[in-house]
């Protein structure tokens, strides 16, 4: 119990101390928040961002309509497109690479590919492209996104994800779509789809497609 006779008079010192500690914690938090890696590439001009946005919107529509021909037309002729649902495998060779010719048969192909190990279970995914796209890439209607981000730190901004993209494509620029809210059936709460582009002879070409969800999908 409180002993009134012996207790010291109330002082404000500890409040100041508390405030100082709070300030320290805040400053630490801010320092961590601001100690982000600076983009090494110059910022995109609005015209380039507009182009990327338009291309990606068309790609998403093509993906929804399973229009492989239109999709293939955007793919980088030299590098192909690297498709993955696992940022861990994205920079590795494991991720599946589709040349424009392969891409044209994307939704028709019956061949099963190994698509890397997703973050959810680590079990390898072996599926046909069409099935993989249905379950892992276009698992939501990305033509109606909640958020679109153009070559900036995105919503699912864990930096390692961006670093993986940067590791795979040092000159890549990306557009990320995300959809929130619980999806139908076993779909996760949040789903994001990023398209990575590189410039070749004055045109933007698709070099990477990375999909991610929260919580991560297992299969």
């Amino acid at each position, binding site marked *: 119990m409180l002993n*009134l006779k012996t207790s010291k008079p*109330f002082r404000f010192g500890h409040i100041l101390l508390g405030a100082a500690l709070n300030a320290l914690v805040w400053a630490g938090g801010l320092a961590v928040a601001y100690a982000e890696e600076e983009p090494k590439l110059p910022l995109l001009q609005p015209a380039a*961002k507009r182009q990327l946005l338009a291309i990606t919107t068309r790609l998403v529509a093509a993906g929804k309509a399973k229009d492989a021909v239109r999709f293939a037309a955007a793919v980088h002729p030299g590098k192909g497109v690297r498709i993955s649902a696992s940022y861990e495998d994205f920079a590795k060779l494991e991720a599946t690479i589709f040349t424009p010719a392969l891409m044209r048969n994307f939704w028709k192909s019956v061949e099963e590919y190994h698509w890397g190990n997703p973050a959810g279970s680590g079990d390898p995914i072996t599926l046909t492209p069409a099935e993989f796209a249905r379950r892992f890439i276009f698992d939501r209607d990305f033509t*109606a996104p909640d958020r679109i981000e153009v070559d900036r730190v995105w919503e699912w901004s864990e930096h390692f994800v961006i670093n993986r993209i940067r590791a795979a494509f040092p000159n890549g620029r990306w557009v990320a779509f995300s959809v929130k*809210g619980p999806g139908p059936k076993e779909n996760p709460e949040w789903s994001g789809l990023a398209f990575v582009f590189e410039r070749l002879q004055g045109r933007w070409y698709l070099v990477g497609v990375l999909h991610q969800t929260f919580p991560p999908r297992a299969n």
Partner: protein
Amino acid sequence: MLNLKPHQLAHLSRIFFSTAAALWLAFGRMLEGAELAGESTQPPLDAATKRELLEITTQLVSDWKAGNAWRIAARVHPRKGVRFSAYFEDCINPKSIVFDCAKMRAFWTTRRVYTWGYYDGSGDRIRTTPSRYCREWIFDHDFSGPDRIVMERETGSSIDSRHLRTAYPRGRAVEYFVDPTEGHMDWAALAFVLERYRGRWCLVGVLHRTWQI
């Protein structure tokens, strides 16, 4: 009963009042948090509506860029008109400026000077012509190449702020955001608020947002 000396009473009262103050603060924060975390008053949008809104606002952005007054006027709410806010918070100001379709059609041709609001630093009136207002307060950045487009009314986001919810309880906002360049505070956001009127999405608000003092 309790025989307290004055200094003891003072001590007790200090304890009492500091506790009360702490509780008051905590309770206030709790309410605030509850309000922030509270469900949006509107149901989440379905995909078709989101797609439609995105198409409409993309068109609006290019119209604002090109100065295509007729197309914008065709989109303006026929009954309510469109309200311009130099800052997001201005939208709850009942006196803020509203343009109807006819005024909107003359947006880039009229030379009339209007009062659009107040500078947040000095409190001076923003008094300019519409075309100049557009240059400085609507399309001051190229929003046709944004860094971020936000559709959802997510908790704590600018387009789900109390102000917007109060001013446009039935409105849906789409925000175009341009990130700051390195070392500057020159980010900007432009939001269009649309409301459904007779089955059609109509423009009721054009809100601008920059760094404020």
